[in-house]
């Protein structure tokens, strides 16, 4: 049965998670990751003066706490009201993932930003966002309505899954590049150190260039999903795919602006959060494709075709 308030709350939690990714991005972009040297308190206080880098770091912790509370409420609410065991489990997976994110965040501060933990914190954030999207979609009218399922003759389910994988890998590359300080290893755009292919004389250049090249593969994967979606009759899938493609094109522009602005805080962070939005749009497309479409009917065997002739 459709529970409108719970669905809206799940949407709110997903939206808050996206905002949290923005807040976290601003911490790194402003170099404020260690502006609060202790955890879980901040300078020994629950609420320090929100000055300088503390505004970004402690602000990020406040937003994270809010998302944690929202996720806990959603998990309890879902347990009490949801008939489907899979959705109930998913709500608790979301809560566990948010707690794990909090622990990783604390470890980044206590251990002075070790790269593997900083990168894991960034990557898990994106996965948590996808879980929130799944929770929101699984409580939607669209999911709960029994509909005749169109055949996935164009292969949208496979294409959208590939797009999700490609975007996620690109996010991992981006997180590695950011936390290994390779964001300006190539300071020009669209050329790379004045050439189409730069000399790979440092790890930073190689990593940065990989991120740029993989962006083209992501564009191709999302573009292919869009083409497949255009072949379906379902306008919801077509609109979702168009949104994903539009955000991907915007991501290229934001990536260029991050480089050309010498990693100014706002354009760089917008690039991070839009990356999450691209992932979210592709993930939602994949969920909807699997839910609204069915595998195409297998072709008749050749011998049966010959007998019929």
């Amino acid at each position, binding site marked *: 049965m459709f529970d409108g308030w719970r669905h809206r709350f799940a949407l709110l939690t997903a939206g808050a998670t996206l905002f949290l990714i923005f807040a976290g991005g601003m911490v790194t972009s402003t170099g*404020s990751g260690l502006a609060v040297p202790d955890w879980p308190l901040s300078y020994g206080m629950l609420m320090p003066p929100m*000055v300088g*880098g503390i505004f970004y770091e402690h602000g990020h912790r406040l937003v994270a706490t809010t998302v944690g509370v929202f996720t806990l409420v959603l998990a309890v609410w879902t347990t009490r009201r949801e008939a489907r065991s899979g959705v109930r489990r998913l709500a608790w997976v979301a809560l566990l993932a948010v707690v794990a994110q909090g622990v990783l965040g604390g470890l980044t501060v206590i251990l002075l930003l070790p790269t593997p933990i900083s990168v894991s914190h960034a990557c898990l954030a994106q996965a948590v966002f996808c879980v929130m999207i799944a929770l929101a979609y699984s409580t939607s009218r669209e999911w709960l309505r029994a509909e005749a399922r169109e055949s996935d003759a164009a292969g949208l389910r496979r294409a959208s899954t590939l797009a999700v994988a490609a975007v996620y890998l690109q996010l991992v590359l981006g997180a590695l590049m950011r936390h290994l300080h390779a964001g300006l290893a190539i300071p020009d755009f669209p050329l790379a150190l004045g050439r189409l292919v730069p000399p790979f004389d440092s790890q930073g250049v190689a990593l940065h260039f990989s991120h740029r090249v993989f962006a083209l593969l992501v564009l191709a994967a999302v573009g292919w999903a869009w083409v497949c979606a255009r072949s379906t009759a379902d306008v919801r899938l077509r609109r979702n795919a168009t949104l994903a493609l539009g955000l991907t094109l915007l991501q290229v522009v934001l990536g260029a602006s991050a480089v050309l602005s010498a990693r100014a805080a706002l354009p760089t962070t917008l690039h991070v959060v839009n990356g999450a939005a691209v992932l979210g749009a592709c993930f939602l497309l994949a969920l909807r494709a699997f839910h609204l479409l069915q595998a195409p009917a297998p072709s008749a065997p050749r011998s049966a075709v010959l007998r019929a002739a």
Partner: protein
Amino acid sequence: MPMKSLPQVVVASLALTFAACGGGDSQPAAPPVTQAQAPMAAAAGNGSVSGTISFGGVAPAAEKVKLSADPKCAAMHKDGLERQQIKVTDGGLADVLVLVKTGLSGNYTAPAEPVLLDQKGCDYTPHMLAMMAGQKLKIRNSDDTLHNIHPRPKDNAEFNIGQPRQGMESEKSFEKPEMLIPVGCDVHPWMRAYITVLSHPFFAVTQEDGRFEIKGLPAGEYEIQAIHGKLGLDKAVSGKVSVKDGEAATLDLTLQG
């Protein structure tokens, strides 16, 4: 997609996240503090080297620092704060570390007296600080606002400590010699100082007019090096000087911008 399989897919994705995202170099563990050998007392001396470090080039204009992020810092600088990392007065360059690079023999014991790094007016005093390996570093917050003190050494253990209250003092030390350790405050990103850790006590930091004096040197032939934090080790210059017992040698050097 059946709802039963969705949580499993999501959990598998999270597991893959951890597997995929552990890349990158891990930060080196803090170097172990080794027990120092009992030092052979080095010969005391009563020679000295003094001189002037000049700046060859055009000093960049001072940067105006935006203090609005912390109202207490803004209140301390009603006319604004100008950050001049290369301070030149009548040709003389301030905040240059001048040290004996070669010519010394023996081991030197770190003094018991700590060196002081103060946070005052939302800036560091001094901007260039030198100390001996194992010597205590006293860090004081003289401001009525929070600071964190975050040096980023390569050979010594990194630390990051908070000082939320005025008058707070903390003590740290660096066990290994290391040049130009940058020190910053992540709350106030314009704050910058450099700490150099040496194995001997023969060093000085130039005054506003570029003058320096290194005392207590035994007689001998020395190479003297001058380093500025902003200009870096690449622009360091050195010169040779001969010190006689009880005499003051002079050496003037020029750092190029």
